[in-house]
């Protein structure tokens, strides 16, 4: 069995990721305080996407997981984006 092959994420790396995540949080707040119309929500969602990516990669260790698992997780998000797109196309052309 290869129990010892697991990658151990160092404390320092985790602390740096936390700082990045907090920075992104304040970035979102300062950006959404300006009214850039439709861009605001896009930028807020993009930053949230970056934060989500950091959590998935480092906190949830996906960066060091098998390719299969990474593809599976990616497909779930892709599936969700497709569902959202299809729903919006449907609503726009009613």
């Amino acid at each position, binding site marked *: 069995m290869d129990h010892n092959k697991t990658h151990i994420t160092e404390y320092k790396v985790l602390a740096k990721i936390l700082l990045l*995540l907090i920075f992104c*949080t304040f970035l979102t*707040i300062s950006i959404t305080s300006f009214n850039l119309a439709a861009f605001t929500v896009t930028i807020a969602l993009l930053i*949230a996407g970056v934060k989500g990516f950091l*959590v998935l990669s480092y906190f949830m260790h996906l960066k060091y997981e098998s390719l299969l*698992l990474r593809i599976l997780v990616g497909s779930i998000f892709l599936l969700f984006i497709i569902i959202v797109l299809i729903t919006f196309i449907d609503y726009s052309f009613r």
Partner: protein
Amino acid sequence: MSEKGIHIEEHRDDEASKLGMWLFIFTELLLFGGLFLVYSIYRWQYPVNFHEASLELSVTIGVINTIVLLFSSMTIAMALTAIQKNNKKLALRLIAVTLLMALIFLINKYFEWGHKFEHGLYPGSDLMALLERGHLLYFSLYFFMTGLHALHIIVGMILLIIAYFKVKKDSVNSDRFVFLENGALYWHLVDLIWIFLFPLMYLIT
């Protein structure tokens, strides 16, 4: 190992346990995904109402809760690192800190919701029935999504409390830590959902 020296193979597959946890996480993501879909359609249909209604929320409490959750996510990831490095004492402390953060989050949520309840704003209240349609939709989604999220916090806390005692009893140790790993994955999921909930509920322009 028996006295006669017969080796008994332990039935165990950590990779499969983890994959199982991920499959469960996928169902959770799609559950919240469905709610986000409903949210985005109604926000698109009632942009002004959603903005007005979101002003009722306190961004400060939202920010505090975001940082509390992000911090707890780091501490539980560190707890896993600690157990992998065979540092049981530190792992126990880090799980305890995570649980404390979870409690702070729930207390904040209690005051946040309590404040709205005092003003007669809760699902099924007389005031809610009188609101404009967009406002009604926003608050219904707000209570349902943050409520479901808070429920996940409680479930995550239960899992982490079990993990705490498993670490204490050494049934989770540097060689077998998949229970803590899966518990931590669940906790990160809760954090991940909040990352999207926060800007969408609190910061609408």
